[in-house]
């Protein structure tokens, strides 16, 4: 009797354990699967288009008769919008972080932080139309020559979207700076601003850099805003006023279009995806390393 029960119990334990294992490794399996698909499909692509060509050709026209497969215009579009986004988000995000961590009372801090997180929960498609229908017309008041689709407005809105990320992570980093450093700064007669900028900020620098990198990789991977508001014209230009196309926007364009599966045109998606994956992967590893270093210093 006892034996039988134990057997059942053992079985139950094993089942539960393997279920738990499966669940926790599910996302890892899926990621591995995605990487595998990316590898296989881009392998197919690079058999027909040389990597050198892919990296150096200055045109991206896979859907035209005269086909070119140079990733540079798309990369350029991605960097342009990312650059504008980061330029928007970093100053505002950092200033908010400094305010929240060094100036705000406990009550303000506890009210504002959840708001920041709500801002991060707005669907990006909303931001996309915000860029197209609000920011672009607004910019046109100042810059009459700006195109209806352009890198500038989508970059700015992308920046607005990542402000909460920058603010929240930088605030965490500054908040983690031990109180006794601030006390040291105040004890020699620093003002709050001096203590914040010259003592707390440098002490939190690696955490803030990690926030910055995360923001960059978020901007690189952002899709909806640029697909809606930046246009779909791969162009090797740094002019923020004309339509461009980012890697992500291109992927959406092809995925939603009627390009037949298995063709070379279709495989461009995976080559682009691979590029994107490598970019953000490297950035994330970098930020992870920085974050760890930061923790080591203060624990």
């Amino acid at each position, binding site marked *: 009797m006892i034996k039988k029960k134990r057997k059942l119990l053992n079985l139950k334990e094993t089942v539960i354990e393997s279920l738990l294992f499966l669940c926790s490794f599910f996302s890892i399996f899926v990621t591995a699967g995605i990487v595998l698909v990316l590898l296989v499909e881009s392998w197919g692509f690079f058999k027909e288009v040389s990597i050198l060509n892919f990296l150096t050709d200055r045109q991206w026209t896979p859907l035209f008769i005269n086909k070119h497969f140079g990733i540079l215009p798309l990369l350029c579009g991605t960097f342009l919008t990312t650059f504008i986004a980061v330029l928007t988000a970093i100053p505002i995000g950092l200033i908010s972080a400094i305010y929240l961590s060094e100036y705000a*009372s*406990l009550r303000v801090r506890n009210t504002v932080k959840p708001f920041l997180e709500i801002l991060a929960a707005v669907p990006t498609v909303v931001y996309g139309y915000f860029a197209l229908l609000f920011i672009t017309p607004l910019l046109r008041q100042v810059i009459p020559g700006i195109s209806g689709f352009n890198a500038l407005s989508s970059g700015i809105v992308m920046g607005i979207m990542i402000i909460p990320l920058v603010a929240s992570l930088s605030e965490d980093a500054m908040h983690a700076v*031990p*109180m*006794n*450093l*601030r*006390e*040291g*700064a*105040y*004890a*020699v*007669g*620093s*003002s709050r601003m*001096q203590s914040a900028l*010259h*003592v707390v900020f*440098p*002490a939190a620098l690696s955490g803030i850099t990690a926030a910055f990198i995360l923001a960059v990789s978020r901007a690189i991977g952002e899709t909806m805003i640029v697909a809606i508001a930046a246009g779909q014209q791969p162009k090797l230009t740094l002019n923020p006023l004309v339509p461009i196309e980012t890697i992500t926007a291109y992927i959406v364009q092809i995925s939603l279009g009627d390009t037949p599966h298995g063709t070379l045109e279709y495989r461009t998606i995976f080559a682009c995806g691979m590029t994107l994956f490598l970019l953000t992967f490297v950035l994330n590893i970098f930020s992870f390393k920085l974050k760890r270093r930061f923790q080591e*210093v203060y624990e």
Partner: protein
Amino acid sequence: MVNPTFRITGLDAFYGNKHVLKNINIDILPNAVTALIGPSGCGKSTFIRSLNRINDLILTFRREGKVCYHNQDIYAKDVDVVELRRRVGMVFQKPNPFPKSIYDNIAYCLKVHGIKDKDKIDATVESSLKKAALWDEVKNSLRQNALTLSGGQQQRLCIARTLAVEPEVILFDEPCSSLDPISTAKIEELIHQLKQSYTLIIVTHNMQQAARVSDFAGFFLLGELIEFDKTDKIFTAPKDKRTEDYITGRFG
């Protein structure tokens, strides 16, 4: 009768609802060392931290009563806290150098007060490191990060940093508690020298240290100042039984 540097009257302090200092009355005299002793948690740190208003950083902190610095109430509305803290420096229990180079630790303190002249900064870095008896050990590595120094060296750097802004008073909150005997001896020696030109207040758990370095001593117990007098009086003929019990180690 000399004018006291600090005159504290009826000081009460609270963290939230917790009443941690009760009706403290004390005069701190210039160019003397005042030692504060008492068991853990009796409010010594709270007391000296309210002399340069560093406790303002603690959001739950609240006080009543008067702390007068040269006859000026430091908690009055029109007081420039930054200037107060420049004049009343503080060295903390745990060394807290800034995560900058040794040189910049001191240079920062000068820049804060608008001193930009490179020669003046260089000279002050050297003179304050010399006063803090650290110069010989670091003169060849001024650009090194201060966090790479030993605990005792870091603490002397913190003292140098405090001296650089030329305060009148220096508050020491258990400056030697995380240091080895050699570093402790160095810092005690330093306190001895600083006495010539500064008013010093030192919190310590070390009775011998209090007896060695101080001119006046105050004994705190559960938020009250039980006794305050010349150090030799406190240590040889305390008036209060509780003081006697504490300094002779009979305290429960």
